[in-house]
């Protein structure tokens, strides 16, 4: 792979944050982020944004009656 440009790097930032890149793709993105202040900024946005989604998304618990109903039917 020849050296990655900003346009290519932008495609890989989310998969990189999601830890889905391996091998040369991963090392090319890392190299590009290290050398390019603009993409470093974009990477920070992606990383922080993912953390915010996780932090601010409230999850709901299954109601007790549902758990009871399921276990009663199955067991």
């Amino acid at each position, binding site marked *: 792979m020849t050296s990655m440009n900003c*346009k290519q790097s932008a495609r890989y930032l989310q998969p990189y944050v999601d830890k889905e890149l391996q091998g040369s793709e991963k090392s090319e993105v890392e190299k590009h982020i290290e050398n390019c202040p603009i993409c470093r900024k974009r990477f*920070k946005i992606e990383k*922080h944004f993912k953390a*915010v*989604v996780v932090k601010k998304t409230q999850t709901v618990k299954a109601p007790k009656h549902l758990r009871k109903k399921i276990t009663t039917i199955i067991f």
Partner: protein
Amino acid sequence: MTENQLKENKESIDIEELSPEEKQELFKEEALPHLNALYNYAMSINSSREDAEDLVQDTFLRAYRFFHQYTPGTNCKAWLFTILRNLYNTRYKNYKKSPGKVHYDDYEEIYNFILDSEIAASIDDPEKELFDNILPEEMVEAINDLPEEFRSALILADIEEFSYKEIAEIMDCPIGTVMSRLHRARNILKKKLVDYAEERGIVTPEDREDD
């Protein structure tokens, strides 16, 4: 087989050879702990609580019926989510699989939108602080407004922490489609959250110090 042996040798268990009691025990250990995650996901793709509860209940009944097809020690959560998703797709017959080719946003455009926004200009470190003041209610609303397939990709990746490959299996689509849905979901969400922040007004440094 004792309970301890069950735990130690999960991968070599042939569920079809278990006694009914052992099968129940294994199901309780492997499948039931994922009830909350399944319910949470079901709530995010169904419009009513009743539909979500029905979907989760049917998922568990089906999982128990086909439990012999599950390989103990493998990812039970992903297996259950795949069952739930299949049931959901069958139930909503008008559910249309998106075409193979998914429209890609210009990958770079979103960053310009964010960094050129008024709200970004008002804070010192926009890439770190921009979304910090988002309220949980705004996040819920913004996620619920996403098209269902985008919302699913986002929740499965960020909340349930499935890999792209697992999401592709759950949603029965290619990995490339997962990636583009996720990309689109996050970009729509970012735009919306920037809009919310701007509607609420520019955040001043004093406001942030109060947090």
